[in-house]
């Protein structure tokens, strides 16, 4: 039933649109109703598990736009199913939780709109089969998460962080889009199912390196890998249900999902595997290191999420069967316990008013259910048996011990990472509930959270335990098909029972080391807090975030600076810029195409003309430097009359007469105006005048060169000769000009007469209305 896919998407998006109305009528109880959408999608998708396990994929396809060979195609296979179930299942609990957490918030309706839109986008992302469609949903998740992170927009800080997340993921997404277009160009298809079968073609293409880098640009920014990791802890600015959702199941996993999805086509190439493994392990180490010093529970969780993302990327890079198996199991386990922990932390924050781990103590008596959920989740995160987290960690070590040579470094990284992660898990999930209570320092008097806020955590954390004890259903119906999809292989039977893993071998020993080390870290947590401020402020200026800030500020500075330099608002400068650019382009064209060699036939110019030109040049100089209007006007007049004389000299008396008349008229008109103007003053400074002088010389010189080149052009005289020859025999007129005007071009003449008449009428009307106005006033 392929329509299930479009139906589950539609149900979530429609509910999103209805959410504001529902909240208006039902208040925060609407959450229980709205949760039906994700849960019903969950049930519909679960029902497909049997078919997926049998190795079939659910495909829904309609034509979209054919010029790029893309279609609106959705496809549900093992990996998609796994992700879709996490998105909808955890999403449902988050919707319920949000109703309690945001109790009485005036904009709860809008919050649900964004949250459900995000959920729909995420679901769409994991089930789309078309690269363009993937990008569409990818961007939708970015936008909706921007709205969610920035939801508490009263603080400037929050808005800045939301924007940071949007810009970083946006940059990656655009790179990814280019990568997608490249893939489409190389393989001729945008369908993921087809692309994953064309690995050889892709890896053999000269574009392969570019494709990998561009796609990873998208995946790394979305999944917050080094050096783009900084936005994720900052995204904590959003309300807690947002963090729980963004950081457990969904948005940050989108990058992981994409890498896993494309893994069949890229696996086997050193570039892909080593890039992933190295960046993944760097992310893990950095996240764990920074996590040690955090005091805000939410930040601790954010850094552990970052670490988990690093682990997942690293495992994908290692790429062996065990590694992928470990990755899938770890991904499920993480989604369950991290969502729980975030929600529990949200409850603590909600009930006590603080998230500072140095203040939170012994809450277990007051908040027993939250304490239970948090404890279970923290144990699962620590990787203790019989929790699901344990299976994931065991598989990591199993994959690790199979490595050889220098690659063993990844095992060490995993060990260190897991060890610290356990410490952080205890710090965040267990620490606040145990120890000697000191409730006096808390801003609020704590008590247990309402039902809506503990239901999700307890269900998800118990699920983590139950799946750990009896993993059969999950491994058979979710892990195995997903594994097959990521490795591009057939679905195989998995044996991940707990008792198979608890055997005295090296991985178990490593687990033991992890537990001891993690506990050690937990006990010494206060030592790290003591130096936290000093360490963090020391390294802060060298971090990627500082780099981001510098680029950001530089862009804004540059933007302002160029506005000051270029957009001065002075017409003078604008004209200068345009003319100089034209001059630049022309000079470039003339010089690079050999235009400087022209011949001047000096014999064509006799003494009279040369004298005339010299007089005109002097007059022009006088016009520029003149100090009174009269001088300037007379000088300009000399230039004009000089032109007229040149016309006359070369046998164009009619042109000469026209020029003479126009020149006289302008000078006279100018005189009338000038008398009413204030005296001539030099406004511009020496520098501006020099600059303008250079511009004028350059432009004038250039035009001269062009004219000299153009003189060589032999113009076609055919028309004028023809007209002259035809004027008597055809039009019976001896004056050629008259014949042209009234005969050959009679229509033109008529048009001109009309224009002149209309203009005259217009002037008459203006004059008349002016007179009328005057008459009224007097």
């Amino acid at each position: 039933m392929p329509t299930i896919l479009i139906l589950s998407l539609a149900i979530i998006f429609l509910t999103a649109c209805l959410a504001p109305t529902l909240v208006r009528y039902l208040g925060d109880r609407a959450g229980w109703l709205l949760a039906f959408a994700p849960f019903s999608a969950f049930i519909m998708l679960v029902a497909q598990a049997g078919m997926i396990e049998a190795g079939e994929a659910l495909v829904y396809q309609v034509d979209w736009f054919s010029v790029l060979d893309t279609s609106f195609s959705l496809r549900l296979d093992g990996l998609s199913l796994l992700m879709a179930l996490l998105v909808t299942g955890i999403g449902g609990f988050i919707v319920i939780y949000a109703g309690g957490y945001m109790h009485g918030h005036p904009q709860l309706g809008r919050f649900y709109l964004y949250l459900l839109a995000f959920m729909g986008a995420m679901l769409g992302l994991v089930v789309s089969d078309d690269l363009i469609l993937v990008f569409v949903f990818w961007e939708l998740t970015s936008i909706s998460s921007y709205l969610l992170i920035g939801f508490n927009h009263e603080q400037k800080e929050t808005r800045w962080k939301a924007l940071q997340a949007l810009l970083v993921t946006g940059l990656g997404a655009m790179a990814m889009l280019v990568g997608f277009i490249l893939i489409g160009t190389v393989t001729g298809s945008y369908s993921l199912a087809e692309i994953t079968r064309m690995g050889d073609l892709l890896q053999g293409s000269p574009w392969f390196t570019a494709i990998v880098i561009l796609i990873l640009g998208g995946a790394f920014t979305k999944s917050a890998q080094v050096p783009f990791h900084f936005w994720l802890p900052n995204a904590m600015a959003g309300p807690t249900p947002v963090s729980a959702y963004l950081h457990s199941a969904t948005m940050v996993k989108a990058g992981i999902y994409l890498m896993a999805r494309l893994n069949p086509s890229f696996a086997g190439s050193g570039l892909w595997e080593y890039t992933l493994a190295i960046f993944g392990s760097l992310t893990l180490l950095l996240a764990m290191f920074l996590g040690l010093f955090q005091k805000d529970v939410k930040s601790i969780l954010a850094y552990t999420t970052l670490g988990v993302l690093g682990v997942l990327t690293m495992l994908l890079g290692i790429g062996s069967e065990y590694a992928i198996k470990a990755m899938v199991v770890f991904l499920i386990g993480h989604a369950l316990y991290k969502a729980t922990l975030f929600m529990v932390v949200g409850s603590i924050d909600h009930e006590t008013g603080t998230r500072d781990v140095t203040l939170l103590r012994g809450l277990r008596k007051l908040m027993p259910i939250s304490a239970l959920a948090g404890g279970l989740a923290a144990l699962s995160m620590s990787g203790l048996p019989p929790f699901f987290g344990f299976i994931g960690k065991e598989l990591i070590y199993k994959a690790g011990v199979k490595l050889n040579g220098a690659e063993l470094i990844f095992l060490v990284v995993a060990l260190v990472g897991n060890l610290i992660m356990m410490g952080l898990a205890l710090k965040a999930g267990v620490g606040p509930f145990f120890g000697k209570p000191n409730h006096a320092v808390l801003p609020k008097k704590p008590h247990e959270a309402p039902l809506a806020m503990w239901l999700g955590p307890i269900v998800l954390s118990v699920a983590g335990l139950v799946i750990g004890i009896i993993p059969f259903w999950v491994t058979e119906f979710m892990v195995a098909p997903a594994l097959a999809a990521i490795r591009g292989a057939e679905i195989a039977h998995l044996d991940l029972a707990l008792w198979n893993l608890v055997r005295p071998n090296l991985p178990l020993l490593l687990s033991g080391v992890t537990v001891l080390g993690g506990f050690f870290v937990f006990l010494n947590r206060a030592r790290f807090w003591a130096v936290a401020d000093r360490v963090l402020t020391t390294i802060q200026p060298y971090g990627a975030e500082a780099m981001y800030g510098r680029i950001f500020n530089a862009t804004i500075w540059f933007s302002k600076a160029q506005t000051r330099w270029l957009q001065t608002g002075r017409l003078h400068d604008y004209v200068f810029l345009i003319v100089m650019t034209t001059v630049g382009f022309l000079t470039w064209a003339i010089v690079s195409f050999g235009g400087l060699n022209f011949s001047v036939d000096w014999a064509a110019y006799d003494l009279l003309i040369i004298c005339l030109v010299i007089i005109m040049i002097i007059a022009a100089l006088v016009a520029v430097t003149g100090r009174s209007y009269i001088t300037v006007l007379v000088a300009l007049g000399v230039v004009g009359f000089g032109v007229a004389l040149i016309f006359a000299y070369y046998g164009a008396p009619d042109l000469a007469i026209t020029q003479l008349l126009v020149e006289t008229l302008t000078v006279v008109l100018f005189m009338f105006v000038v008398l009413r103007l204030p005296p001539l003053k030099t406004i511009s400074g020496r520098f501006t005048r020099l600059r303008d002088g250079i511009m004028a010389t350059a432009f004038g010189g250039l035009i001269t060169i062009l004219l000299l080149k153009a003189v060589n052009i032999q113009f076609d005289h055919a028309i004028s000769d023809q007209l002259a020859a035809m004027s008597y025999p055809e039009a019976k007129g001896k004056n050629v000009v008259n014949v042209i005007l009234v005969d050959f071009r009679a229509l033109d003449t008529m048009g001109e007469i009309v224009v002149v008449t209309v203009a005259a009428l217009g002037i008459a009307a203006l004059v008349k209305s002016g007179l009328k106005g005057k008459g009224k006033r007097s």
Partner: protein
Amino acid sequence: MNKLLIEFLSGYTATNQWAAILPEIMMGVLALCLLAAEMVLPKNRQAWVPRLAIWGQVLILMIAFGFVGRCSIGEFQYFSGLITQTDVTQIMRGFFLVSSIAVCYLGHIYLSKQTLPQTEFYALVLIISAGMMLLVQSTHFVMLFVALETVTVAFYVLVAYSRTSQFSLEAGLKYLILGALSSGILLFGIVLLYGIAGNPELLGASRDSLNYGELMNFVILNMNNMIVKIGALLVIAGVCFKIGAVPFQIWVPDVYQGAPTPVTAYLAVASKAAGFIVLIELVRGPFFGLQDFLVPVLSVIAAATILFGNIAAVAQRNVKRLMGLSGIAHAGYLLLGVIAVMRGVDWAVYAVIFYLVTYLLASFAVFGVMSIAAGEEDANQELDHYESFARKRPFLGGVLACGLGSLAGIPPLGGFIGKLFLFVAAFQAELYGLLIIAIVGVVISIYYYFGWIRECYFSSSSTAVVKDISCGATSSDRFLLGALTVASIVIGILPAALPIIR
């Protein structure tokens, strides 16, 4: 008269099919009718003038569509090669009609807040629309220049239309002087081409040396002639002024800010679109032989345009200047399409048109909201005025967000598909360097477009005292803006709804 001459003249007039430019003629007649209507109608019926303008254009649009629908797709030359009609020009005629209808509507909103004469505004808008329709059809430099000047001169008036506003007058003066300068540059280029192509000593010289077809043959035969290259360069420079490409973009922010908002919208959308179609026709026609020379020039211009537009917009707080500067960036993306056309990717023409259509829908939605939200001083619209805008006016806020999102190229809005097509075209043309610059530009644009959306939706305090936004939207405002937004979304989800690219 002798028979030879009659035959000669009738040969000349054989292609004068006035019916082919019926919509343009009707636009001109409608413009005159408006002026007459103002005189005839009594004072209290003056509101009929904008209605007449808008409904008259809707009628012309319908006639034009029916007219186009009956024509088979192909290439038809009329008026001895002065104009040529292709499927591209037919789409663009509809484009200009739609945009002038929208401008008339925005003008109606704008003028209701001002004490300015009304009728001339609509008449000029109609004349410009007719001029642009002829402009894109012209395949002869004389026709091109006449149509271009008709448009430009009318724009000089419109930009300075708000006579009482200093900003508007200053913008008008700047546009006039810089526009005249660029027209001069363009004309100089045309003259050089005319002279050289009419030179009988050169191979392929033509009597009709301003005709695109003739010129194209000549240029292919003389592609290394320096005068040809310089002429082409000057013509391109003149067109670059119209599309606002760097370094001829310098007028854009000041003029966009000073001009009345509807005129800004008109400049931003229709004038730019006309410039691009002219540019495409030039590079496909007369300058076809100069690709090796023009592609690097245009590539440099495109890169500079994208970077300049986006970076300059980052720090901008005045929304009209912001639209102007971001419009420069859009011109840069569109240049990518033009360059792709030059590199032989023929369907890139349609990608450019598609992009223009999505740009039209999104821009008019944004400018429409701006017109409604603007106070009496039209030039003074700052980002700060939009604080909590969406909370006060949820509908207008939604329209604005969709419009800006589409301009930023966010899926599933039309602007995204437009960018996608352009980028794919650029890919097929192997313009990798430009593509990277375009992508950096798109990311920067997210910053300022979302800065505006953020101003609308997020505010620094939940109980901010919102600056009063002068008036709300009437039901017809809602209809128009809603239609533009819905069209943006539909095109984004189903690009096939716009039968430009199949």
